[in-house]
C-alpha cells in the first residue's frame, strides 16, 4: 500500500524535519542523502508543495523546507496526498475507487468491508504520528547503536 512515491516522500520530509530555523535543503542534497532518484524527487516535492507541506525558494541559495512545524504534519496526511486514501486494496475506499473486475456487489463484498476496517486501523496509526515523531524514532535507533559500541 505504501508505494515508492510515498516512501521517498516520507524520507524527504523527515530529512527536512531535521533542518534548523530558516535553513533550506537543495533537492540534489536530499536525493543523495536519502538515495532517491533526483527527477522523481523533484516531482514528489512539487506535489508536497502543492499540498501545502513544503515551501520552496528558487535560485542559487534556494531549496525546500517544511511549510509547517514538523509536529503539525502527520504521516497520515502526507501518505493521503502521495498515495491516495490509504486503501489496502483499490476498492477499499469510500470515494474515487474502482470496483474490482470480479466485483459482484461493492456494498456487500466481505473482503472489501473487512479491508475498509483495516484501512481505518492504518489511518489511526499513521494519523497518530507526526514528522517530528518519525525524526525522533530515527534518532533513538542511532543512539542505541552508539551505546553498544
Amino acid at each position, binding site marked *: 500500500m505504501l508505494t515508492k512515491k510515498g516512501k521517498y516522500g516520507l524520507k524527504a520530509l523527515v530529512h527536512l524535519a531535521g533542518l534548523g530555523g530558516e535553513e533550506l535543503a537543495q533537492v540534489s542534497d536530499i536525493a543523495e542523502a536519502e538515495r532517491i532518484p533526483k527527477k522523481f524527487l523533484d516531482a514528489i516535492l512539487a506535489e508536497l508543495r*502543492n*499540498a*501545502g*507541506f513544503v515551501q520552496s525558494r528558487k535560485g542559487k541559495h534556494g531549496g525546500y523546507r517544511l*511549510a*509547517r512545524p514538523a509536529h*503539525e*504534519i*502527520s504521516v*497520515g*496526511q502526507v501518505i*493521503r*496526498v502521495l498515495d491516495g*486514501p*490509504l*486503501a489496502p486494496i483499490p476498492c477499499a*475506499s*469510500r*470515494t*474515487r475507487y474502482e470496483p474490482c473486475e470480479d466485483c459482484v456487489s461493492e456494498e456487500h463484498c466481505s473482503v472489501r468491508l473487512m479491508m*475498509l476496517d483495516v*484501512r*481505518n486501523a*492504518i*489511518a489511526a496509526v499513521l*494519523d497518530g504520528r507526526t514528522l517530528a515523531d518519525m525524526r525522533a524514532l530515527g534518532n533513538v535507533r542511532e543512539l542505541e547503536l552508539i551505546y553498544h559500541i
Partner: protein
Amino acid sequence: MLSAPRVIIIGGGASGTLLACHLLREPLPDLRVTLIEPRDELGPGIAFSSPSSNHLLNVAAANMGAFADEPRHFWHWLVRNGMLPASGDAEPFFFAPRALYGTYLRSLIEPHLTGDDRPGRLSIVKGTCVDVAERPSGVEVRLEDGTSVLGHVAVLATGHEEPRQDGCHVSPWVSPSVAGVDPDATVLILGTGLTMVDYVLSLLDVQHRGPIVAMSRRGLLPQAHRRVKPLIIDAADVPFGTDVSYFMHWLRETIAWAQERGDDWRSVIDGVRPHTQRIWQSFSESSKRRFLTHARAWWDVHRHRMPPEVDARIKAALATDRVQLIAAKVVATEPRGDGARVRYRRRGARQEEVLDVDHIVSCTGIVTNPSETKNPLLRALFASGRARVDPLCIGLDVTTDGALIDRDGHPSSRLFAVGPVTRAAFWEIVAVPDIRTQCARLARRILNDTAASLAATRP
C-alpha cells in the same frame, strides 16, 4: 466551601440548555447546575424563538435530537406529542417549525427544575452577567444587579450576537409588524443566506407590499435540501492538513466523481460534514484565513441548505420580483429622514449606485468580530485579559476542549465555552448535531475535573 459539584452556565439558549441536559443526564444526585439567562424563556434563545410556523428548522427532524447517541430524540418527541403535520406521513425527512424546537428544548429541562414534590438539580437565574472572577477553588459570576453566583466552573454559552436594532435597523428575529415595519416600506436586507430567507418569508407572511432588496457581495442563495442517498466518507478518505486550495480541489473532484456515478453533490457534502471540525483544526492559520476569504461563501450555501418548501417560496418571490437579489458591496450608509441612503457597488461594476430605504435588516451572518461585541461579560473578560479574541477574529480563543485561553495564551481550568462562540476552534458549531457532540465532551470533562478537585480537597 462547595462540597458538591456546581456548574454555572451563562446563557440559556440552545447551547446552554443542551449542555445542562448533558450534565444532568449523569446520575449525580449532588450535582447542581445554574443557568443564567436574561430572557424570560429558557431554551429557544435567538435561534428558536420565532413564533412563525413558516420559519422552519434547516435540519431534518430525524437528526435534531438533543443527544448524539439519540439523534431521533426530537422526532420521537414530535410523534409522542402528536405534533406532526396532518398529512400523517410519519417521515423523518421533515423540517419542523423553529418554535417547536424551542418547546422541545424547554421540555428537556423542566424535569430537572425544583417542583412541588421534588428537589431539582437545576436552578434558573434571570439576569445579565457582567463579569466572572476566578477564586481559589471556583468561580464567582457577577450579575448586573450586584448579586453573585458561586460555582466550581463557569461555561459561556452566550451564542450569537444580537443584530443592530438602532435607528432604521431592525432585527431579523423580530416579526416585521412588531418591529414597526410599514407594509409599504422599502426594506434592505444585508446578507442573502438562511436568515435573509426567513426574514423575507416573515415579510411576505404579513403581506408586505413595499420593495424588498437583498444584498450580499456574491449574491448567492442557499441551495435546497433534497432527499439523497447518504454517502459515508471515512477519515481515511479526507486530505486533512493540506492547503485550503488543495482541499477544495479534492472536494470538487469528489463531487464530480459522485455525480458521474449518478449521485447527488449533497451526498458528498453531507459525507464530509462529520469531519469538518477536524478538517478545520488541521488547517494552518493561513489556510483558515483564505478559507474565510475565498471559500466560505461557497461552502455556506452548499452546506447550509433550505427546506424544499422554503426554496420554492423564495424562488417564486424572486421570479415575480417580489424580492430583488443584488450582488453588491455596501460602500456607505447615511441616515436620511427616518431611513437611510445606501451607496453600493455591484459585483464587477465600477460606478456606485444609490438606494433609499426605510429599514435595514442585518442578516450578514453569525460570524462577527468578537471585539465589537456588546455583551458586557465578554467585554469584561477581554478587558481583564481572562479571555481573548482568536487570531482570525471570529470568536473566543479556546482550546479544542473548550477552555478559555487568556491574554497570555494559558488555557483556563475553570472557564469554558460552548456553542457558536467557540467557532474559532471548531468552525462548524452552529447546528444542533455539532453542538450536542461538543456538549457531551465538555460535560464529561467538567464532571471529571470537578470530581478530581473535590477528591483532592477532602480531608
